[in-house]
């Protein structure tokens, strides 16, 4: 029998493969199916681990974000905005789903949203828009991959890394997580000094060292990176974003998640040492908390605390400069005339009570109080909102301002001034990274903010005596914004009322997961 495909035919077909692949690359960006000339675009910028407590716009004595101050002159500034959780996964999942972590259940490091909630997300809600997303952060990419059917274009994370080698996660895009781990373990010796590969790792190391040499001079505290050695430049990400937006079909919604000022704090040379000689000193000396990270019982090193804070502030200053550059470019090319520009964060960062960073069960203000600035197209005046708001409010608000129907499945409310503030509203935040998301959350940290009070509930942690251990803390955020005076025992009436509401809400959220 004559073969249906001759060798010559095969070679011909093989020959047209490269141009076909190239053409597919250009054809991948579809034309927006939504033809409403008056529809406004939406740009959401998330700076990772940016605490409102360290931003000059919110009263921090160091001038860490002069460009955000400039943007705020024509925007709405939210002064009491809360993240859904205290690290990326729950924080971003809350923003994307408009639900609290106890609802979306993406509570563990790098976990995903429960299936019956993932189908309701920000991108799905904006189905008629061209939907574009990029994130430096791996955890965000895990979430974006989960909802990739609802996003038209997810820019691959490594496209904006400095080194862009023939990495397996690019060769095997359908199996990114494991392919990426395998590639990392195979070719990167890193600090461990060993890899799966005997020789390739050596060559790879030498090549990358050469590539990095020039940049090292620009970044005295190390080049901005994810993990050990996935180097990137915020400048590259901003440049890409400016150019991508001009090429994107309109109306579009873009979610851009940039890692700075997340640890490691590596400002560019111009910002290095920017706050070395100011008078802030040790800032506040707060008592050690039960969740302090000291391995032994030694006192908090105020010098270390001050250094970490200063380095973080310098990194914010660097990130702010890039935010300013982005804003100016979008202003200059006219994008902002018909675009809602939203600036926020996924969670904060803390440098007090013996707790550093954000990998903690604690829900103090520095890790949970985040910035939110909304720039409405054509807005000229600054507006300030002092009511408590949450990351879960962004989704219903964006739908409201773009005149789309509001979903019933969100935990959020339309933000003021786009709707009247709801009096006595409850705002929650949840942290449960060590819990099984498919069971009632334990150990868990949960926060309720109501009026000017904040009740925090910690349960099930070893330091509290194990599964049955509990602790409550109550603060008056208006009279005591630094949370130094625990009122839980001093104001039992308020404490009991809030405690009951918080525990009821938690129990209700856990109800579907009871055995």
């Amino acid at each position: 029998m004559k073969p249906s495909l001759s060798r010559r035919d095969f070679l011909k077909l093989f020959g047209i493969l490269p141009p076909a692949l190239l053409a597919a690359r250009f054809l991948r960006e579809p034309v927006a199916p939504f033809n409403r000339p008056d529809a406004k675009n939406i740009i959401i910028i998330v700076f990772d681990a940016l605490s409102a407590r360290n931003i000059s716009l919110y009263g921090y004595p160091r001038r860490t974000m002069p460009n955000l101050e400039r943007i705020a002159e024509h925007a709405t500034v939210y002064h009491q905005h809360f993240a859904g959780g205290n690290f990326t996964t729950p924080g971003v999942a809350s923003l994307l789903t408009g639900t609290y972590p106890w609802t979306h259940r993406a509570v563990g490091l790098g976990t995903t949203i429960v299936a019956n909630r993932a189908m309701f997300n920000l991108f799905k809600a904006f189905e008629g828009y061209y939907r574009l997303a990029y994130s430096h952060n791996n955890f965000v990419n895990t979430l974006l991959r989960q909802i990739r059917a609802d996003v038209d274009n997810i820019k691959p994370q490594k496209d904006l890394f400095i080194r862009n080698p023939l990495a397996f996660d690019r060769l095997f895009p359908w199996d990114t997580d494991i392919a990426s781990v395998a590639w990392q373990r195979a070719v990167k010796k890193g600090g461990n000094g060993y890899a799966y590969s005997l020789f390739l790792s050596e060559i790879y190391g030498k090549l990358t060292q050469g590539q990095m040499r020039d940049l090292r001079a620009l970044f005295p505290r190390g080049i901005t990176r994810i993990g050990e050695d996935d180097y990137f430049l915020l400048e590259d990400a901003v440049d890409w974003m400016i150019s991508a937006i001009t090429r994107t079909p309109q109306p579009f919604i873009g979610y851009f998640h940039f890692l700075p000022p997340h640890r490691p704090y590596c400002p560019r040379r111009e910002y290095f040492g920017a706050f070395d000689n100011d008078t802030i000193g040790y800032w506040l000396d707060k008592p050690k908390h039960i969740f302090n990270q000291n391995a032994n019982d030694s006192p908090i090193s105020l010098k270390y605390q001050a250094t970490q804070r200063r380095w973080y502030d310098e990194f914010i200053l660097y990130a702010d400069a890039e935010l300013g550059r982005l804003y100016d470019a979008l202003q200059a090319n006219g994008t902002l005339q018909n675009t809602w520009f939203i600036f926020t964060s996924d969670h904060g960062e803390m440098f007090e009570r013996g707790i550093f960073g954000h990998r903690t069960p604690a829900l103090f203000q520095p890790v949970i109080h985040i910035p939110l600035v909304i720039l409405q197209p054509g807005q000229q005046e600054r507006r300030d909102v002092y009511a408590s708001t949450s990351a879960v409010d962004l989704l219903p608000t964006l739908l409201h301002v773009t005149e789309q129907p509001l979903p019933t499945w969100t935990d959020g409310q339309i933000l003021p001034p786009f709707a009247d503030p709801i009096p006595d509203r409850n705002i929650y935040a949840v942290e449960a990274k060590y819990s099984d998301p498919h069971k009632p959350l334990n150990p868990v940290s949960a926060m309720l903010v109501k009026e000017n009070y904040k009740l925090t509930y910690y349960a099930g942690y070893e330091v509290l005596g194990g599964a049955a251990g509990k602790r409550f803390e109550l603060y008056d955020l208006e009279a005591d914004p630094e949370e130094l005076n625990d009122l839980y025992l001093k104001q039992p009436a308020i404490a009991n009322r809030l405690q009951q509401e918080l525990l009821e809400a938690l129990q209700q959220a856990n109800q579907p997961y009871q055995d």
Partner: protein
Amino acid sequence: MKSLLFQSKYTLKESFDLFLVCAFPIHIWALLMAFRDFSWVAERTRIWDAIGLVAYALLIALLESIGVFILVLLLAWLLPTYWQSSKRIALTGSLFLILSAWAMLGQGYFLMQNPLPEGLFTLLAASEHPARILAAIILPLITLSVAIPALLIYKSSKILEGVLQFFERLTLLSIFYLLLDAMGIVVLIVRSLTQ
């Protein structure tokens, strides 16, 4: 039958044997390291992902083996043609195995978390050029470890015979690793179809 690339120098069998010699240390190290991570990945995700990790490690090892083989073959090609091809294969193969042993030793040292000997550490710390001093100590050792066996293979037909017999056993094991590579590729195809 002659090899396509080096028709006047090596038979296809000789070239393939040299490839198998190159593949052996690369695969053994990759498998050792990947299985160290197996339980770590399985605990955090699932066993199928851990199997995927090993499959990727094998694929990288296969590609690395091909790359190294090409370099070793080029080196073998530079050797004088009046030497028997078996002698040239024995020399280049041994050279590669010794260098692989050094590479394993280097990585294994970190793997075992061994500190540097105190005397050496003090010497390095006191000097202004610790990297140069370390190279000055290690390079002669590597040179000797390569030169002595090479000389012995060149001079002694008994040693040459022994090395070739050793290679024969090694190639049998390497064929087993190539089978694992093939299984790994199947795993990756299945993973791509099921994702």
